[in-house]
């Protein structure tokens, strides 16, 4: 789902740190603002950056499905329950009722204009938070992500652990599939006992692999020195300065808008 999409777009060539900074700016901006038009503007900025990054939409089918489902659920629930909250004191414009008669405790479930507005706002906020942060794994090669982690001075063992988990997690699922198949072929059922036995075998196999890996790491002199050098480096170039300035400007504009809205400046 979060696979790197190879390309030579300008976003791909950016330092991963500036992409992380951009997603952080979008996160803060979306949290400080509650105005739908401003959030729409932020979404437009996000979409523009996605288009520049040339991420094919076919890669994001599952992602759109998940985000779309969350959006529908959010709008659906907020449209009914937002104005019913005991902390809501604003106006309440009922559009229609979901139930034709009064049901004890839940009432007639009114769908309100304010609720729909709030749901849309939450959905936009979600999109503005999620899409920029997803762009980081889509446009950054995993080895560059590891370099960023090194720059953030994470211990080498932790970085190795993250790298290996990219491979190890699918491998564990693959092994689990084979063991389950072996059980099925011997008439095993999905009882707790069978699942327990399956996990036992999986653990033994994983430990054996881990032992082999530990020997290989030893013979590759891993962990002999706390400081490792690196073949690749990441450079904060001029384009990164520009991109970070752009991100800061977006954040600043949103902050200014919010303060104007709050009547702080004027």
């Amino acid at each position, binding site marked *: 789902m979060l696979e790197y999409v190879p390309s030579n777009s300008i976003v791909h060539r950016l330092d991963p740190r500036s992409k992380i900074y951009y997603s952080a700016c979008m996160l803060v901006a979306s949290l400080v603002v509650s105005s739908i038009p401003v959030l729409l503007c932020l979404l437009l900025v996000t979409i523009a950056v996605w288009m520049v990054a040339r991420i094919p939409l076919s890669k994001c089918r599952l992602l759109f499905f998940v985000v779309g489902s969350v959006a529908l659920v959010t709008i659906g629930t907020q449209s009914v329950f937002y104005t019913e909250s005991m902390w809501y004191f604003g106006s309440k414009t009922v559009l229609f009722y979901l139930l034709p008669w009064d049901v004890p405790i839940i009432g007639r479930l009114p769908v309100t204009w304010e609720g729909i507005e709030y749901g849309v706002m939450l959905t936009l906020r979600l999109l503005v938070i999620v899409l920029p942060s997803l762009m980081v794994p889509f446009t950054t090669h995993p080895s560059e992500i590891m370099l960023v982690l090194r720059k953030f001075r994470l211990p080498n063992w932790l970085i190795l652990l993250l790298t290996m988990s990219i491979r190890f997690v699918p491998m564990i699922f693959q092994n689990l599939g084979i*063991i389950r198949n072996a059980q099925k072929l*011997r*008439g095993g059922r999905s009882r707790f006992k069978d699942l327990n036995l399956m996990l036992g075998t999986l653990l033994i196999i994983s430990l054996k692999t881990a032992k082999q890996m530990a020997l290989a790491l030893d013979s*590759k*002199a891993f962990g002999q020195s706390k400081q490792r*050098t690196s073949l690749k480096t990441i450079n904060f170039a001029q384009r990164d300065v520009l991109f970070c300035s752009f991100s800061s400007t977006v954040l600043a504009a949103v902050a200014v808008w919010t303060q104007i809205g709050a009547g702080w400046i004027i």
Partner: protein
Amino acid sequence: MTLEGDVIARIRGLCYKYPSSEEFALKNINLDVRRGEFLVVAGRSGSGKSTLLYALNGIIPHAISGEMRGSVNVCGLDTRENEINVLATKVGMVFQNPEAQLFNVTVEDELAFIAENLCYPRDEIERCVDFALDAVGIRDLRTRYPFELSGGEKQRVVIASAISVKPEILVLDEPTADLDALGREMVLGTLKKLNEMGITIVIAEHDFDEIAKYTSRMIVLENGRIVADGDPRDVFLNRVVKNIGLRVPQTVEISLRMKGSTNTRSVPLTVEEALNCYKDDLSKIRISRKNDNPASAKHTKPAIEIENLSFGYRDVTVLENINLTINERELVALVGPNGSGKTTLAMVMVGLLKPKKGTVRIGGVDTRKTKRLHEKVGFLFQNPDYQLFCDTVESEIQYGLKNKNLKLVEEILETMDLKKYREKHPHTLSRGERQRVATATALARQPDILILDEPTSGIDWTYIKQLLNLILDLHSKGRTILLITHDMRVVAEYCQRVVVMNNGRIVLDGDTRTVLSKTLKQAHLKPPPITEISLRAGIHPPLIKVEEIGTRKPEKKPYATKQTQQN
């Protein structure tokens, strides 16, 4: 201590005992490895091969503790006094399973890994990566994700990583055990090239057919001691390899069969050498071809019927238009390169995968319409570890049985020679024993059909032979057997019929001799040496077993013979 002359590694009086063991794994080993040698370490599983290799690069005593006596000196460095990181610049290490030796997300990162760990400056790391890419010839893989590569490519990346810091010795522990013929050829070709560049190769192996021609010296280990050391021709000729239960190259077997030869120089290690030696002799020998169509093959009641089968995952087609009928009591080999669809086909046969198109019938019943398929078909996975779940061997055999037939369990324990292990945890047994337990579990249901997926890979010849004899026994008792394997010598010696797959299709199907005499190159397969030699010597149909070489034909002297008769 420095090493004199061309000696690059010196082992003196080495004894080693693992922390959890009571017996020494290595007993008084004395060995000098000379610069530029291609040294093969042979021996059965558990003979101490891996332990000896671990002692060469400092894994023993630094990463695995235990009791170590004697000394190991590599490139002038005592392994006891120098840490693994110091030794890593002198000795590169490659293990059997490439998957467990790749830690990075690109090939170039993998090649830079050791140099980075040793804190080399950046330009030096770049030089290391370039050297490794060129030495192994994998420049085209530079930016690839290592886990997407084929088995042979993965292992070549692992080798490139091991030599990236230009070690003087490369130590390899059965690096080709999990590979198909193509992968094996790739890896051995790479090793040959590195050896020609001056890197000393020390490699543990138990399949000598391909590697023998590259070998300059061979040592044989048994119970932790060196029992033979010398030129591979000498070692094979004095029969020590065969006597301890390993399989000698078929060309050597041919040589022994042809003359009962004792002359080292005349022992061929390659098909070409064998042809040079015996091309003329082969036309003069009697040939006793064994029956290609034994009685059991005449049963025409189908056990497995596959019609127009296609199977795929999403957009990828794995099996395409497969039509295959296997009759009752047949012993069929299913061969083909890795990724050709053999295992997928087997999975469809046992009902674990549902066909996209077409039908599969087992004993006349459509696999989609029955849930009791596991009672008819026994399946043995490639790695026995995936099919062992229980705490004891006995409960393992009983697992999944509806009626606990104790008499049958006893019988299976007896047949598989597992009685002494009945209370042991299956995972504590050796690989060969685990394979036997896994086979026993497949037999517990008394299936009519037994499908075995690569049961011969990664285990030594003694175990393979035991397993194959058991399969033959089951076959003679009326079972239908489908054997998926890469080992063409096994196919030739044990199977009646061969089905060849490539790119998800069946490309050849027929009796073993006919299939082996056809060109198998397209499917990246090589016939056994005896078949290749006899084909190139003009013998049609070719020989497929060494036992088919009979005695020499008498010289034709018709006149003298007549006279003798008259007298």
